[in-house]
């Protein structure tokens, strides 16, 4: 249905072919110029189209933060929840219908800091959720505070002397907790990102994609990376594509290589599979009261 709408819209010179996937009246978005979130959202839409998943079965869930605003712009059933809780909300939403494709789009602070406990457990239980986690290395929406993905020496408003703590390596974290599809891309790798998004969307179980995004406003300007393009250029110069590598070897450090690629793709029974298995087991057990 959505496809038809977009085709007819192509005839309208004023319209963008992806307009029907955006909520009417919600554009312009709140994202800064030079931010990667706009192009990442475009890739999400293109991947959804390419996956041929019935739009009716798609639900977008996000938490709080710049990336978290994506749910409100996308024209699917969409849920903008509380800080950190997108994943458990998504689990509850997802298991009520095995045909539902729940996509969580949120930032590194939301998913890996305040929601970190839910990330490791959602991966452990192989919940049927696709996570697009945009890592901008710090807290953008609140004005650029240091975060658990900030590298050592990174300058943010709450690390005025440079960050002193090791950052999370998100693909390694997700993989070690049981995620059955794990990849990482920079916002510049649009083509590979889209291919990987489609794979992640069609994957059964917990798929986790980290996208390194450019945040010129609160990350770049404190770290000698003035604008979005400079950050992307910096990504480009540091990126090494290494499919299948142990994600433990993909830690990001200041000025070090950025290893991107697909690190994990395995099949395991999902949370929903296992819950439905219980229905059969419980059928003949007499309830006791």
């Amino acid at each position, binding site marked *: 249905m959505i496809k038809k709408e977009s085709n007819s819209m192509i005839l309208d010179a004023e319209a963008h072919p992806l307009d029907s996937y955006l909520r009417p009246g919600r554009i312009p978005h709140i994202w800064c110029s030079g931010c990667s979130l706009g192009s990442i959202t475009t890739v999400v839409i293109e991947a959804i189209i390419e996956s041929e998943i019935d739009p009716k079965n798609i639900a977008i869930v996000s938490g709080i933060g710049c990336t978290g605003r994506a749910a409100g712009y996308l024209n699917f059933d969409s*849920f903008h929840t509380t800080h950190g809780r997108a994943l458990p909300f998504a*689990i*509850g939403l*997802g298991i009520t219908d095995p045909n539902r494709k729940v996509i969580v789009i949120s930032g590194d602070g939301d998913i890996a800091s305040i929601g970190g406990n*839910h990330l490791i*457990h959602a991966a452990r239980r192989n919940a049927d959720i696709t996570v697009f986690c945009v890592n901008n290395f710090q807290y953008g929406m609140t004005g650029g505070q240091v975060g658990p993905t900030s590298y050592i020496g990174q300058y943010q408003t709450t690390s005025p002397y440079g960050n002193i703590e090791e950052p999370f390596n998100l693909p390694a974290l997700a993989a070690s907790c049981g995620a059955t599809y794990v990849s990482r891309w920079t916002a510049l790798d649009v083509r590979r990102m889209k291919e990987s998004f489609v794979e992640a969307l069609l994957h059964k179980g917990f798929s986790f994609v980290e996208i390194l995004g450019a945040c010129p406003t609160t990350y770049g300007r404190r770290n000698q990376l003035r604008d979005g393009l400079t950050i992307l250029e910096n990504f480009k110069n540091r990126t090494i594509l290494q499919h299948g590598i142990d994600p433990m070897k993909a830690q990001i450090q200041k000025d070090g290589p950025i290893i991107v690629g697909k690190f994990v793709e395995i099949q395991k029974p999902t949370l929903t599979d296992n819950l439905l298995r219980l229905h059969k087991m419980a059928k003949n057990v*007499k*309830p*006791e*009261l």
Partner: protein
Amino acid sequence: MSKKTEEIPDILTGEYFTTGNLAVAEGSLAAGCKYFGGYPITPSSEVAEHMAERLPQVGGHFVQFEDELASIASVLGASWGGWKSCTATSGPGYSLMVENIGLGVMMETPCVIVNVQRGGPSTGLPTLVGQQDVQQARWGSHGDYEIIALSPNSVQECFDLAIDAFNYAEKYRVPVTILMDETIGHMSERLVIPKRSQVKRLNRKKPSDKPGQQIHLPYEADKDLIPPMAVAGEGYRTITTGLTHDARGYPVINASAQKKIVKRLCNKILLNKNDIIKFEEYLLEDAEYVLISFGISSRAAKGAVNLARNKGIKAGLLRLITIWPFADEAIQEMAKKAKVIFVVEINNGQITREVQRAAAKQKADVYGILKLGGSIHTPAEILKEMEEKI
């Protein structure tokens, strides 16, 4: 466990001798609950254990989460998936849930939270009774809102109020808390589960527009101030957020949108107080000395009324079944006639203060007969404190 071949029904019609925790779980199932997301905590864990066994039998799901933050978030998610959903916890867990109970209020998400209260603050008395979370149930989440909380005082009522809680949640699109306590949760009494046909089940209103025809307005309320609820997968492309929003569900960050939504969220409850507020009256017609109580305390209070009557003291009991919204009007009327009102509760006067507010400027004086958790009143103790003020 014995085996049998026929399908297990979702409602176990019959007579039982069981606990409040199991009764509230069975009541939830009878109300149509299909999802429970929870985390173990004393003294509520039996609710989760029973749901873990029962939900897969009725085609529902039970998931034990990593914490209470996740549990309540999953309950909201499942409700937006179209399933009646609940969780159960005790004080410390409820404290972790309150942020997302606020999200439930803002998103207008039907769901039920059982709080089997123990003594607090903090870890307090994990295995002993308390009624110290009654104000938390009202004000626990930040911001202004109205919410529904019910308090059973018997095993049978745990079952019955679970059904009411789900029905209110669905009807008013609001999280409903069942304020139990350790004693009610763990004591065993007779429970009669009615026939399925005798259980009244209410469901959330569905939108009247067809999906996909025009832009759906998920927060366009009807005259009753309650918007119909389009859940995920129905084709409405519904949208919801914890941000202040308009009828389209779009964020609007200004004072007038804020005023509009907060007023509606409050009024949809306040204008329906007559439907929501329930209480039980015992020997109140001629009562000069009125006890007000709820939950387990109300049973000791009833005993105290009987003791007082035997001594010729004209005592009566107003038992609050609905705690929130508060029964202001009933208490105000009571305070016009009675000489003294005593509030019997296991906390430092949380409902006493509420009664004093409702009874302000009326004839009756209001005193609390209070315990701070760990044990319940005896009727004789209550009578003794009454006599000191008579």
